[in-house]
């Protein structure tokens, strides 16, 4: 890859995940409102929210320095994770620099950043939210890992670009289909929306990890949550349903955005029509799903 196409690719990825995510969040709110028989906010409302919050008063309730810096880390790590997803073509911009394990760990760093923010805020509600967030993360991460590993075994390489290239070329087989289904079933938990937004439960623990945040920090975390939605939908759509791919950069981006919109629509439907799960129910669901997804690995091993 030469430098210009690399640079362009990086810019497109960050643009889609960071700058277009509030638009998708607005879309989500509109769909949810329509289901609930309301008019709902305008689609650009999330942009206005973030900009407003950036300038609002920043309440400092602790002298812990980590409280100041970790919200930003969550946004930055989502941006870094996005650089490992292919949007403009078959290969992500950082294909050569990291593989699926780096991706899994950067997702973990996102979670760590939010948990550190919560614990630095000294509020017990935040701790409850942090504890739940960690448990959710550790129960849902194996599913993603297993799915990516299935791809790796089939493709013969741990790099995301190679997996997508192989999958695009050889078409679906049983193990990859099974992996796709598993990722889809865990997508709500990965994105962190109802029924799985247990750590930011408004009614139950006063918004949990977000309780002490205000102003720019609150803006960052909200932004991070929006970007997370787009990121994981991109993961699902670009890695597990990589068709069609053309040669043109703009066309690929538009196809990606279209696929993401459809998936977000489905996810919002699930969100609006379901209650929130309890943490132990969520844990059991995810762990069972993880155990079930191991069959995908065995099928991949058999070469099917």
């Amino acid at each position: 890859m030469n430098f210009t196409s690399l640079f362009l690719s990086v810019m497109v990825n960050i643009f889609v995940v960071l700058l277009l995510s509030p638009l998708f969040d607005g879309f989500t709110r509109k769909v949810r409102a329509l289901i609930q028989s309301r008019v709902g906010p305008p689609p650009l409302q999330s942009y206005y929210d973030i900009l407003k919050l950036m300038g609002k008063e920043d309440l400092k309730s602790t002298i812990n320095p980590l409280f100041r810096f970790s919200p930003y880390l969550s946004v930055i790590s989502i941006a870094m994770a996005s650089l490992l997803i292919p949007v403009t073509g078959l290969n992500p911009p950082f294909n050569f620099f990291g593989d699926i394990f780096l991706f899994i760990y950067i997702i973990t760093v996102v979670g760590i950043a939010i948990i550190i923010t919560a614990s630095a805020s000294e509020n017990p509600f935040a701790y409850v939210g942090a504890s739940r967030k960690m448990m959710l993360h550790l129960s849902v991460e194996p599913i993603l890992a297993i799915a990516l590993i299935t791809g790796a075994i089939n493709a013969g390489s741990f790099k995301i670009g190679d997996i997508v290239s192989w999958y695009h070329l050889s078409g679906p087989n049983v193990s990859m289909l099974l992996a796709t289904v598993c990722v889809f079933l865990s997508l709500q938990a990965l994105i962190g929306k109802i029924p799985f937004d247990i750590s930011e439960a408004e009614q139950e623990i006063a918004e949990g990890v977000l309780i002490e945040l205000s102003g720019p920090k609150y803006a960052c975390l909200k932004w991070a949550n929006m970007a997370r939605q787009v990121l994981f939908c991109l993961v699902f759509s670009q890695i597990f349903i990589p068709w069609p791919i053309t040669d043109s950069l703009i066309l690929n981006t538009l196809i990606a955005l279209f696929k993401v919109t459809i998936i977000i629509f489905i996810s919002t439907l699930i969100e609006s029509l379901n209650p929130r799960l309890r943490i132990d129910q969520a844990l059991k669901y995810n762990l069972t799903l993880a155990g079930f997804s191991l069959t995908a690995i065995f099928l991949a091993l058999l070469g099917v």
Partner: protein
Amino acid sequence: MEYLYFSFLSLTLGALLTALIRNKIGSGVLAVLFTSISAVLLIDLALDVLFNNKIFEEEVFSLLPLLNASIFIRVDALSALFLLIVAIVSFCVCLFSVKYISSYSQSSLSFYPPILSLFASSVGLVCIKDLLFFILFWEMMTLTSWILVVFEREKKQALKAGLQYFIATHVATAFLILAAVIIYSYSNSFEFSEVYKSLGNILVNNSLLGNFLIFCFFIAFVTKAGVLPFGFWLPNAYPQPPSSASSFFGGVMSKLAVYAILRFFLSVIPLSSTTEAWGFVIAFFGVISIFIGTIAALTQDEAKRLMSFHAIGQVGYMLLGIGVGIYFIHISPFLSVIALTGGIFHAFNNSIYKSLLFLNAGAIFYKTSTTDLNRVSGLIKVMPLTALAAMVGALSIAGVPPFNGFVSKLLIFESSIWSARVNEALFLVKGAFIIFGIISIFISAITLASFLKFINSAFMGKFKEEDIKGGRLSWSMTLPQIILATICVVTGLFPSVPIKFMYDAILVSSKINLPDFNQVFSADIAGIGINYCQSCLSSGAWYPLFIISSTIMLSLIIFSFERYAGAKIREVKTWYGGKEHTPEEVIYTGHSFYQPFKEIVSFKVGGIYFKGFYPSEFPPLKFAFPKWITKIIQPDDWFYYPLANLISKFFDRMSNFYERLNRYYIFWFVLGSLLVGILVFYFYGGKL
């Protein structure tokens, strides 16, 4: 080479001299002096060997003609790596202990001499090429560490733990001694290369005996490393000594057992297709430790016990890597060296961050006199540097990039999963290795959860003023932690140099032809790319330079954005729902973390409560020989005394009979003379 002798000498001299000084600070300073001399010499020697690819060999003292054993020193890349670990950690531990020991009431006489002898025997262990003296240093390590485990002699727990520890490891060493004498009867020498040759012969002619010998070695090393189920003593024993000693135990001692496994399986046991199954056994026990150890760690509330369980889990990672490596050493050499490199690198990394974490626990103990996570909170206010180092350590052990744990875990995960692509391996074995890999990925997240619990309970949260003594920690306690944290960061950011060293260590100590470094890793200053086979190029990668630089650029952009927005900062109190609360009411204790998960993994089997798959207490061992055995083997009661009584009664009777009346005297007299006369006539009749 003389550096090695001088460093050993300085450590021994230090042990003797600190035994004469009663003053805690004085003996501490003396210990630091001797340890730093030894550390500098060892680091110099180790870097010389590693950078210039040298090997030093020398025979110092021979026990001929009694036994064909000698103090045969060999320093190659593998030994040099572990010397490096010993040097760094020993220096940090001693520096930390100077002030730390003053928080204990026991005398420092039972701390510095044993720990300096422990350092000396560790140095000796990694350089010896002879089986008898290897056993000698091995037991000396156990002996000196036992003295440290029972440091607090009045505590019942410490005594029980020390007893368990010594007995368990001594039983394991008995296996080692048995294997050593059996091999000696075939090889007539204790030196490793002779043992290698005769083991080769034994495996060919009598494979049952050969596998039994490998089993003996395995049991001995695996018990010392703390792999479950043999390492049941470890969670009880590691929390007992002062934290600086625990730091050395968790950081170096268990890694020396891993060194022993590496050394023996690469240089002493000839690996053929029959013995490769041992690789699978090693990986299997590794995964059991990973799984049970880490999940049990998640349920612990006491900081040092939590870390000891993690020590068990992390040793499992190393064994997984080594096991995969040994299994594939003939089938797929590329995969094998990647796995072995991952295992050794994990040992190196683990020693750094585990020591760091135990030193953190020590700092917590120093300030608050307790390591119970339910009682400490908010310590970042008084120990900011310690909290930073603890975060680095916690993130390293969880394997988060860009710290060093990530690189070694990457290699281990990828190599165990890549076994699916090796066509010559059995299906079940491939499936098993993949399951092992996935379990270790899952457990990596649990490690993260467990250490976030540690950080959150101990350092974050509301600060309670009353329990703290003194102001900030002195530099002698913070500096070692900073040193270790820096090494974590640097090794993670520039992994190509350490990986070359690990690779050389494997090449030099193994007796098999393995591929060249540049064929397997494409390494430069920016990072490493991994090739899993001759034709599959760069199937794994980690280039920290690019990742870090882009992170820094992005953060600059976002910060400037925030600056531009210019929000005002106002200080307020934490909000609890509108009410004022005292600190005790709002502290979130360590116990409350992850309650639902704890409930999933705890259960009761047959009267024993398993908390996180680990029994909360072992059933007491009652041991007695049956009564009839003890009766038989004491012949006094049933044989000797009755016999003696019988004989004395008989003679009593005779004497009674003799004493009655005078005529009986005359009767005996006449009878006796008649008898004598007959005898005399019979024998000498002819002569008279």
